[in-house]
């Protein structure tokens, strides 16, 4: 499992009081873990700070609304970790 996944799983466990053991790379933040949009703001803030990035939540939400993406692409944790890795790489480029 990637360091990025471990980091976001720990953030979610701490922020939302969800048992760490129940959070897996396959977990969907909304559908499986029941995280609502307000709690996700806290998670986004913690991720932004931890990785020095700005998660493009509004763009992702728009893409889902427009049918150009599925929530799985952004909110299944292994995919979220991959998106974060891309943002970190883009920042350093």
């Amino acid at each position, binding site marked *: 499992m990637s360091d990025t996944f471990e980091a976001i799983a720990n953030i979610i466990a701490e922020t939302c009081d969800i048992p760490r053991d129940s959070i897996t790379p396959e977990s969907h933040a909304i559908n499986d873990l029941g995280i609502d949009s307000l709690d996700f*703001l806290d998670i986004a*803030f913690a991720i932004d700070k931890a990785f020095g990035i*700005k998660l493009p*939540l509004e763009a992702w939400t728009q893409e889902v609304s427009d049918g150009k993406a599925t929530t799985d692409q952004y909110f299944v944790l292994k995919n979220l970790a991959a998106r974060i890795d891309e943002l970190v790489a883009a920042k350093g480029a």
Partner: protein
Amino acid sequence: MRIEYFQLIDRIVDLNLADRKITCEATIPTVSTVFEGHFPGYPLMPGVLLIEAMAQTSGWLVVAANDFKRMAFLASVKEAKLRTFVLPGQTLSISSHLEHEGSGYAVCNAKIRCGGKVVSDATITLRVLDFPNAEVAEEMRKLADKIGLKIEARADG
């Protein structure tokens, strides 16, 4: 301060977008129906209104940081502390620092001082959304102008 209208900020004293800080001032009225109930014979500024004043101050900072193109809505309040009683007639200095601008949200650290002493502080999270319609945007611009938030040069920028 127009408590009954939830207009808690009298004037912007300082806005520094480079440092992402704002300071506002507000004088609590000596007479208000609020004090008839809170509390009869012992009027105190309600703590929730002190928190609201910090939220509004943070909101103006975020609106200014967004070139007055978006609006801020209170989403969460953390670590709010009401350190001492605040009385009718007292003047508050309310400051806020924009700690983080995320995508569709902002996190601010706000403080209220009275007579140089910190009386309240909190971490305020705001959702940052488009104005719901042109009328609301216009009303907010009027209110901004009234309290001295200079937006003319930025409104079309």
